[in-house]
Every structure is written in C-alpha cells, then in structure tokens.
C-alpha cells in the first residue's frame, strides 16, 4: 500500500515471568481505513492497541505512526486518541468539560476550544446534555461523550477498545451504524479491538485475526470468510466443517489427500503442507438429497441424519458419515409446509461443488 498511517513492525510484548502477550506482529494500516483487531479473549489484541496508543511499550519491534517511529513518544504526544472500554469519562467534570479537557490541557485558546467542543457534541448528538455530570447518564450516552472527547482532538488515528461489548442488542446496532457513519464523515483511521466477529465483519474494511499474540490472517471480511488461511480463522469466523485428511502426494500446484470418510480429494493450491491437512467447507455450501446426486464433479458422501434443528428461516442438520466427522448442513427452509423435509435417522446424501471447499495446511 502507499504510505501506511500505522505500521507495526515485528512488535512483541513479553511480560516478566515469561508470558508472551504479543508475538512478532506485522500489520500495515492504510489511511482512512476502518481496521479491526479480532480475536478471542486474552489473545493480545488489547495489548497491541495499547501499544499503538503508547500506554504500553513493546519489548521488541517498532510502531510507526504517520511516518514517525513512536519509540520515544509518550502517549500524550502521539497523534492517536483512545475510547476506553469503560469509557473513563471523568466523573468530577461535566460533559462539556470532559470533551474540552484534551483541548484545554494542550493550550488551545479558549474560544477555539468552545467552538470545537460544541461541534463535537453536535456530532454525537449530545449538545442538550452539555452541562450534565456523567453519573446522571446512561452507558450509551457516556460512550458518546468518550467519542466526542477523543474526536475533538482531530487525531490521525482513533482507537476503540471493545466499543460495542457493553451495550445491549438494540443500542449495539445503532452504535454500529453510528460508528461507520462517523468514520466516513470525519475521514480518519479507526482501529477497533473486538472479540465479536459480527462486529468486525460488519464494520471493518480489513480485519487482522489474532490468536495467542500472533497474527493469523489479515484480509477483508469476505476474504476471511471465503478464504480462511488457517484452521483457527476458519473456525473462529462463522461456522465451518473441518475434516482431517492425510496427505497422499504433494505437487507444486496441487495437494492430494485422503479425507476421513470422504475418500481421495485433490485441491489446487500452492500452499506448503505437512503430513496432515484439513478440508474446510461452510455449512451453507452443502446440499442434501435423498437420492444420490448425479451431477458431474460433485464431492459427495452418504450418511445418516443425526439431528435437525429448526430455526424458522433455516434448519441446521447434523449428518453422521462413516469413518469421518459429523457434517453440519445449513439449508434454507423453502417449503411453506415447514422445515427441511428430513427426519432424524433418515439416510441422506451430502454433496458440494469442489470449489466450495478448500484445504487448510495450518
């Protein structure tokens, strides 16, 4: 990419006692991106965010923001601002004073401060609560104060730590749209940290999936979903069927393997692999039929229906196959008479197009 706004190069964070929170991470974030750091609890994503903000320092590697190495720059001098998970809105100041705080402590003239504060409050629709104290406000309102407080400083990068996790479902949807709209309006880079894949997939333009301190994959939401690079990513994002397979032969552009219960399969791929790989196919890509499907080129296998779960618009069917793991199939319920039309114990054929599955080497 052309000059990234944030460049994380070989950054590690080791704590005394041997705990490695962040392990040799390399990420480049482009200006005006809505970037997400996604991963399970404890994977190091928040630590990484805090290192970008300057509240923690890496034990190895460099963090470069706007072309400058941030190694000697303390958090109060960085062109970043953070919205904390607990919002951290100062309880002893009014909303207005909270938002103006960052401007006042950096010596911005009072008339400009007043103007920009009013603008920021307008942007998050809190102008009518300017004189309130935080303890008289709801969580969602306090979050907007925290947002305004950070945005009024016009940072190059806005960092958000789990912005939606403390909100209830309806508020979450509203805030999700709000954040996306804000990012486009204000035109600055947003980096959010979240453990919720729905949040990341729906808001971000690119996502870095992180597990145990290391980056698993950096890609757009659809790339992550359709082309996961590792078992972890495939399993973490959405639901997936993973079938273990033993590698039979490996050529430069293809891998042939024996998949449990499925037989011999060949995949066109340039990935390197060891002795075992996993075949991955998403539940909605699988088709069921009572009779053996006759179309050419399909991967197909026979099995028995173990469980049917009806969800109104879809049904989740679990099929057990001989010699292999259970496959989950998600079907749309087209028929008006209800359901998928299959019952427990029924013999059934599962099939899919070869292009709909892929091989995972790690």
């Amino acid at each position, binding site marked *: 990419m052309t000059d990234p706004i944030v460049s994380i190069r070989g950054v590690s964070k*080791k704590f005394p006692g041997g705990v490695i929170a962040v392990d040799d991470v390399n990420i480049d974030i482009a200006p005006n991106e809505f970037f997400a750091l996604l991963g399970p609890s404890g994977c190091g994503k928040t630590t990484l965010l805090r290192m970008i903000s*300057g*509240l*923690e*320092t*890496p*034990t*190895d590697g460099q963090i470069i923001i706007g072309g400058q190495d941030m*190694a*000697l*720059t*303390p*958090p109060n001098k960085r062109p970043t601002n953070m919205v904390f998970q607990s919002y951290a809105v100062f309880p002893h100041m009014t909303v207005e004073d909270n938002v103006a705080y960052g401007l006042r402590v950096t010596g911005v003239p009072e008339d400009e401060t007043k103007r920009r504060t009013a603008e920021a409050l307008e942007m998050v629709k809190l102008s009518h609560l300017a004189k309130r104290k935080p303890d008289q406000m709801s969580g969602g309102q306090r979050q907007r104060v925290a947002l305004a407080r950070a945005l009024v400083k016009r940072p190059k990068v806005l960092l958000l730590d789990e912005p939606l996790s403390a909100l209830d479902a309806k508020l979450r949807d509203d805030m999700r749209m709000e954040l996306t709209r804000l990012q486009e309006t204000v035109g600055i880079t947003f980096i959010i940290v979240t453990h919720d894949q729905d949040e990341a997939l729906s808001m971000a333009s690119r996502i870095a999936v992180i597990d145990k301190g290391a980056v698993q994959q950096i890609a757009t939401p659809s790339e992550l979903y359709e082309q996961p690079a590792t078992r972890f990513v495939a399993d973490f994002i959405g639901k997936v069927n993973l079938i273990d397979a033993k590698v039979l032969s490996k050529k430069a552009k293809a891998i042939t393997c024996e998949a449990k219960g499925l037989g011999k399969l060949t995949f066109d791929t340039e990935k390197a692999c060891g002795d075992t790989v996993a075949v991955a196919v998403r539940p909605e890509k699988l088709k069921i039929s009572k009779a053996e499907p006759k179309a050419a080129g399909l991967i197909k296998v026979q099995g028995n229906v173990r469980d049917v779960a009806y969800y109104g618009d879809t049904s989740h069917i679990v099929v057990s196959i001989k010699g292999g793991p259970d496959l989950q199939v998600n079907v749309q319920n087209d028929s008006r008479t209800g359901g998928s039309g299959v019952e427990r114990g029924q013999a059934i054929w599962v099939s899919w197009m070869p292009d709909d599955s892929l091989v995972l080497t790690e």
Partner: protein
Amino acid sequence: MAEQMKPGSGPLDYGNRLWLKVLFGVIFFMLYVPIITLVAFSFNTDRRGIVWRGFTFDNYVKAWNNSSLIEAMINSLMIAFIATLIATVLGAMVALMLWRFRFPFKGAYEAFMGLPIVIPEICMGVALLLFFNETGMMTAVVAMPWPLNLSNIIIAHVAFCFPFVAIVVRSRLVGFNRQLEEASKDLGASEWQTFWKVIVPFMMPGLVAGALLAFTLSLDDFVITFFTSGPETVTFPVKVYSLVRRGVSPEINAASTVLIVITVVATVLAMKLQAPQKSGKG
C-alpha cells in the same frame, strides 16, 4: 518535559520511577532510624547513650532487676489481658447485634458506639478521673488486693477498646453467607447450636484480630491510664514516662525494646489473620 519511555514499561509504572524510590527510601529511613537506634542503643554500655561503647545485655539485666519497672510491666500485661477478654466479648456482642438486627435509631447508635474512637483521649481520661473520684471508686479500689486494685484502669480500657473490637468483628461478619445459617436450621439445629457451630467458627478470625487489636491498644495506652491510675497501680507506659522525664537512659531503651517486640509480634499476627479476608474482597 520529555519523558523517556523505557522498552517494556508504561507511563503509569510509577513504582519503577527513580524519584519515587528515592522518596520512599528517605521517608522509610526517617521513620525507622529513631526506632532502630533506640533498640540498638539498648545494648550500649555507655550510660548516657550517645556514643557506642560496647555491646552488653546489662541494660536489660538492670531493667529486669528494677522491681518497680517489672511491677509496672506485670500490671500492664494483667490489665491488657483482662481488658481484652471483656472487650472482646462486649465488642463481639455489639457486632452481632448490629449485623443481625434492624432497629430504630440504628444510625445514631452506631455513631454513639463510635464516640470513644473519636473523642480526644485526654477528654476521656479526665472525665474518667473525675468519675472515679466522685463515685468513690478511686478510693475503693486502692484498698483492694491485686489485681482488683487495677479495676478502674481495666474499666477504662474496656470502654475505649471494645468499639474497635466491634468494628473488626462486624467487618468479618459482613462476609457471612446467611444461607449457611439457614441450612443449619433446616438440618435441625437450634438457634443456640447454630450460633456456636456455624457462626462462631466463622467469626473466629475476626474475634482473634479484634482481641489482638484490643490487647495492643490496652498495652500501649498512656493518656487514659495516666489519669486513671494511682501511685500503687502504675502501668508500663506510665512508668516509662516518669523515667523519661528524668532523662535519657539505656535502661529505658531496653524496656522500650521489649514493648516494641511484643507490639510488633501482636500486630503481625493480627494482620496475618485479617489477610485471607482481604483477598476475598480484592
């Protein structure tokens, strides 16, 4: 002011900052030097205690042989022992009552219980002196045999100790799960049995901590004892005071060191007993 960021640290790592460590060092030094030198010089041979002349236990021997000093120490211990016993029982009862019951004017009662802690000691001391004098208790106890002649002092000590015990025991009771009590009754135990077999064992760390607190407060007390004791019923701090008024001497150092050791041991014990509960709240 450009703040250098060491790799691996954060801006809130104040504990690692040099100026804080220096400040700590200076303050701890100033806090402990007088005490340490006091203890150290209790082993000094020099009478006037300034220059170090040699190590000796003589001062301790002299203090031990000083019968009035020993008598004062025994008085102090006896008073502390009896006062602790009574104060612990009273304090525990008040704590139980406050923990268990709702009643009108409870807030005012709690403030009333807190009065001995808040009133300046000297006011309490002179009030008790006056009281014992006017009620004739002062002259009455003088005639009694030991240890009853210490009664006034014991009464005074109980009065200012048991509110502290109540606070300690009460904070322990706050963590008690009443469902344990209900389970006990559900299994057939009576109120009395439940009390002894379920509540008291739970209260025990609080009771012991409170008792140790009362013991220390009683043993160390000077002001109130100063006003309520007579020439026949001198306690250790009061005796040391009269010695100090006459001047510095290593014997006093020796006697003080003994008191310090007793106090430190009691305090550390009390803190250790409070500790498990602290981590539960943390």
